[in-house]
C-alpha cells in the first residue's frame, strides 16, 4: 500500500475545510451555503478517516459514517428550509431572513 505522511492528509483536510468555511462566509445564496457546509463536513470526515488509518483502527471510518448520517439529515432539513424560504420570500438570500435581529 501507499506510504503517505499523515500530515499531508491532514493538510488536505484543513485546506478543504477552509475552502468550505470561505464558501459559507462569502455566499449569500442558501443553496451555496449548504454546499459549503457539505464541503466542511466532508473535510472533517476526511480528517477522521486519515487519523483512523494512521492508527490502523476502524473508529475513524465509523466516525465518518456518523458524519455522513448527520450530513444527510442536515441537507434534507436545510433544503426543505430553502424551499420554504423561496416559497415565502421568492428569494434564496439569507440576508432577507434577519427577523431575529436584536
Amino acid at each position, binding site marked *: 500500500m501507499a506510504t503517505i505522511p499523515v500530515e499531508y492528509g491532514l493538510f488536505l483536510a484543513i485546506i478543504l475545510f477552509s475552502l468550505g*468555511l470561505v464558501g*459559507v*462566509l462569502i455566499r*449569500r445564496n442558501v443553496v451555496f*451555503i449548504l454546499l459549503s457546509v457539505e464541503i466542511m463536513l466532508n473535510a472533517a470526515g476526511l480528517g477522521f478517516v486519515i487519523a483512523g488509518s494512521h492508527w490502523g483502527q476502524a473508529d475513524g471510518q465509523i466516525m465518518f459514517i456518523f458524519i455522513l448520517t448527520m450530513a444527510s439529515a442536515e441537507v434534507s432539513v436545510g433544503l426543505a428550509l430553502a424551499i420554504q424560504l423561496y416559497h415565502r420570500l421568492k428569494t434564496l438570500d*439569507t*440576508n432577507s*431572513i*434577519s*427577523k*431575529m*435581529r*436584536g
Partner: protein
Amino acid sequence: MLGLLWLIPVIPLIGFILLAIIGPRLSRTAVAIIGVGSVGISAILAILVAISFISSPPAGNAFTQTLWTWINVTNFNPGISFYLDSLSMIMVLVVTFVGFVIHLYSAEHMLHQEGYSRFFAYMNLFVGSMLILVLANNLLLLYLGWEGVGLCSYLLIGFWYTNPANGRAARKAFIVTRVGDAAMAIGLFLLFNNLATLNIQDVMQRAAQTWQIGSPLAVTAAALLLGGAVGKSAQLPLQTWLPDAMAGPSPVSALIHAATMVTAGVYLIARTHVLFSLAPSVQLAVAIVGAATLLLAGFSALTQWDIKRVLAYSTISQIGYMFLALGVGAWSAAIFHFMTHAFFKALLFLAAGVVIDAMNDEHNMFKMGGLRTQLPLTFWTFLIGSSALSALPLITSGFYSKDLILFDAYASPSGSTWLWLAGLVGAFLTSIYTFRMVFLTFFGKPKTKAVYQPGSRINLALIVLAAFALLIGFLETPSFLGNINVLGNFLSASLPATSILPQRAGSEGILELVSAVISLVGIYLAYLLFLRVPKTTEAMVQSPVGAVLHRYWFSGWGFDWLYDTVLVRPFVWMANSNKNDFIDLLYKGIIRLNEALHRVLSNTENGLVRWYATGIAIGAVIIIAIVVFL
C-alpha cells in the same frame, strides 16, 4: 409643702394637655378658666412653697425632688428631678406670678381672636416648660425646658399663621435660638464626658475641683454655654430674631419675649456661675457682649416706628445690662434686674397691647398721639413702666436695679470704667427712646381715635404690674438709701456675693447721682426732640449723616442683611439647586452607560446567518490559536 414642688410645672402642663385635646370643643369661658386657672394654681403653689422654703429652709438651703430617672445608660443617668434653691425660687415666683397676670390679661385681650384655646394651650405649655427650665436639677432637663420654651416661642410668634411674614419671624426665632442651643448641646457633651455628670450642682463642684482657673476645658465649656445663652437671650451676635418676634400677640411678647424666656440665658449663666468663674476670659466676653448689645440695641431702638419693636430692642438692651452684670460677677444684681425688668417690661408690653388694640391694630407710633386722655389708666401704667425702664431716680425699681449694675460694673474686680461708661451711655439712650415712645404715643395732638377701652381684667393686670414695677426695687437699695439687702441675702445661699474693690467702694453715691442725672437729661432731651421741636429732629434724620445712621440703626446694624447674605441665601440656593440630588446623577450615569452598551451589543445581533458564522469562525480561530501557541 416643699413636696408639692413637682406640681408647679406639672399643673400648667396638664392645662396644656387638656386644652390641646378637648380645647376646641370647650366654650371660651371654660378655656379661660383652665388656661388662667392652671397658671394661677401654679402661682399659689409657688407662693406656698416659697413660704415654706423661707420659713423652714431645707438642709443646705436647697431641696431636690426626683420623680423618676429619665435616661439611665451606664453612668449617664439624668433624672426628671427638680432642684429648688433661692435662685430657682425667685425665678419660679416671677414666672408663675407674671405668667398668671399675663394670662389674666390674655383672657380678655385674646377673647375675640380665632384659636382661643390654642393660644392658652401654647401659653400653658410655655409656663410649664419655663418652670421645668428653672427648676431642673440637671442640665439635660434644663435643656428640655430650654427647647420647650423655644418651641412655644415659635408657636406663639406664628400664632396668626395665615400671614407668611409671621411664619417667617417664628421660624427665624426658632432657628436662630437653635444655633445657640446646638452650641449648648456640645457644651453638655463636653461637661458630661469630662465630669461624668450633668447634675448642675455636681458639675459645678467637680469642675471647681478638677479644673484650674482658665483651663482650656473650662473656657470651652463656659463658651459653649454662653453660646446657648446668647441665642436664647438675644444677645450679640444672635440678637436678630427678637425684633421680628414681635409678630406674635402682645401678651406673648410680654411673657416670652420680655419677662421670662429671653432671660433664660441670664438664668443659665447665673446657675452655672462656677464654670464662668473658672473661665475669666469667657466671663469678660459675657460682659463685653452685654455692653456691646445694650449699646447697639439702644441705638436701634431710637429709630423704630413700631411701638413693639422699640420695646423689643429695649428688651435686648436691658438683657445686655444683665449680661454686663453677670460678666463682672454681679450675679445677684443680674437677677435683681431680671426681676424688675420682668415686671416693668411685661407692663409696657401689655400696655402697648392695649394701645395697639385701641388704634385698631396700628403699630406705628407716628400715627398715634394724645392718647393720654383717651386711655388714662393705660397712660399712667405705661408711664410707670417707662419711668422704671429709664431708671427714674428713687421711686422706680429700674433705678435701683440698673444702678446697682452700673456700680458693680465700675467697682467689681473684673469691672472697668469702660464697661461702666458703656452702661451709662446705654442708660442715657434708654431714657431717650423710652420717652420718645411715651411722648409720641400719649402726648401731642390726637391723630386717631381710640376705638376700644380695656376691661376690668386688663386693667387689673396693668395695675398689679405697675405696682410691682414701682415697689419691687426696694428689695435692694444702695448703702446710702437704707441699705436694704433682702434679695442679695436671700440669693447668697446659691450665688456668691459680688466683691467690690475697696478703693472704688466709696464712689457709689457719686455714681448714683451721675446716672440719675443722665436719666433725667435723657428724658428732657426726648421731650425736646420729639415734643417741642420735632421738625428739627426730622431735619437731623434727613441730613446725609443722619440718614445713613438712621438706616443702619433702623435695620438693627445690618445684622439681618449680613446673615441673609452669608448664611440664608447660600443655604437656600444650595438646597434649591440640588433639588434633584446630584448624587443621583452618578446612578443615572450608570443607567446611560448600560443603555449605550446595550445599543452596541444589540447591533451585533443583526439576524444575518453569515455574520453569526463569521463570529463562530473568528472564535474558532482564536481558540485554536490559544491552544496552539500557549
